[in-house]
């Protein structure tokens, strides 16, 4: 696990010598994020593999995966569209944007299209309140989104 120990150093802690290599466990989230990005979810098999790699129980991996909303045990679409539902976005009509996405994709919020191309979700504030209503398209912050922009966003990803 060479890549994990970017800085090795022996220091004294409470009278004992400790090797500080930015503890391996602290790279668990990064590992899981990589799997999520590649596979679209974290399968039981991958949880077991990760657990073996980090020498922890798979249940611990499961507990971490289920805590974070960007890590999932269900397969997500290749593209994840998250519409901000926080107050400033709601005030500027985010509900309407969700409805248009639902209609265009033929799915309800929280679902994935049959071809596995799109997942539609609502999310808490994404820090785009000055450009409300805003949408997080994969890693990209988009806003303000008008009803007419929905097609453009979807076309770009198809």
């Amino acid at each position: 696990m060479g890549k994990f120990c970017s800085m090795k150093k022996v220091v004294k802690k409470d009278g004992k010598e400790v090797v500080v290599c930015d503890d391996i466990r602290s790279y668990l989230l990064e590992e899981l994020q990589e799997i999520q990005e590649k596979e679209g979810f974290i399968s039981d098999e991958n949880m077991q593999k990760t657990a073996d790699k980090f020498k922890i129980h798979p249940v611990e991996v499961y507990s971490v995966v289920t805590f974070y909303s960007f890590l999932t045990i269900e397969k997500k679409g290749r593209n994840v569209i998250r519409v901000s539902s926080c107050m400033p976005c709601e005030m500027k009509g985010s509900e309407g944007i969700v409805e248009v996405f639902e209609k265009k994709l033929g799915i309800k919020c929280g679902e994935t299209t049959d071809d596995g191309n799109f997942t539609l979700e609502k999310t808490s504030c994404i820090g785009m309140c000055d450009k409300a209503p805003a949408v997080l398209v994969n890693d990209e912050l988009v806003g303000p989104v008008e009803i007419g922009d929905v097609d453009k966003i979807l076309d770009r990803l198809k």
Partner: protein
Amino acid sequence: MSKREGPVIFSEIKPLTGLRKALEMSGEAVLEVIKSSNLKGRGGAGFPTGLKWGFAASDSDEHKYVVCNADEGEPGTFKDRVLLSEYPLLMLEGMVIAGYVIGADRGYVYLRGEYKGLKKELERVISEMRENKALGEDILGKKGFNFDIEIKMGAGAYICGEETALIESMEGQRGEPRNRPPFPVNTGFLGFPTVVNNVETMSVVPHILVKGADWFKAIGTEKSAGTKILSVSGDCVKPGVYEVPFGMTVEEVLKMVGAEDTKAVQVGGASGVCVGKDEFGREISFEDLPTGGSFIILNSGRNLLDMVKNFLEFFNEESCGQCTPCREGVPVLIEGLELIKKEECNERYLKDLFSLCETLQCSSKCGLGQSAPNAFVSVLDKFKDEYKLSTKIKKETVFNGQ
């Protein structure tokens, strides 16, 4: 650098001059400057930065960490997005200075998952700093001072903005807050002394070093030195990010952003308070109206109960579920709010709800639970015209079957 204007963070400064200035002095001398500048944490809690750094500096552990909290998640807050994308060097420079003061050789930026798009540019700036010897070994020629910065990504959890939850998350755990004490300044990341500061706080530091503590203290009010960066959204002509000196009134802010017909302003996001017209004279400062910077403006056409519902649902979603008052209390408040909206809540039950709010405020483990009922309390307490209570006494709406 950019065309934004402001008294402190958005004022002119040459790259790396703050760090150069710091390295000319001893770590203790830099700490004295920060202490005397009266800089307080900009994340919301307002803890004196000099004091925090001092605790970490005086800890006898020889290994320490600096962490920049870029997990901005408070609804209505987006100032850090602007700082990270337009002024990344200022924040990183502040982190190196913090490392110099406390004696750390490693820093982390904990970036929220939603801002993943900003990571690439941040990494570019970091590697540019390495090339310019502003990161790495013997920084800017200062023998023996080594410091490097790495970015850690969050994964979509609001609670990780709380510093102990953030540290848990950095360690690869569930982002559940720790009991305090011990505080992170003594027992932080991996058990080592760790200074956690907000993006805005870090970005102020280079300015203070270049321009002096007295210059900084001259801006703002007596107890709140400097400026606050506001994230203004909602019903106004010019939403956006503004740097204003402490002491500015709500009214002045509203005028500046072109807000008319304003009924109320939610100050401080979902965990903040709602202020009405009669309070528009209040000043933004740690002593009067403290805020992490979020200003959500609501005009007379808005229903404040809808806003409270939005916020409570947010807290319900984001509660880590670790402690009972927060996990179980918030859903009861949502139910109660539904009753109020349907005009089916009587005075007695409202009293019960208020007492539940008090329970949340005083017995939740972390800031999330403690501030979850804030919007509920401030709206229902101050905006009595917004709702009508029922006069009927309904058995099922009373606690404990009384």
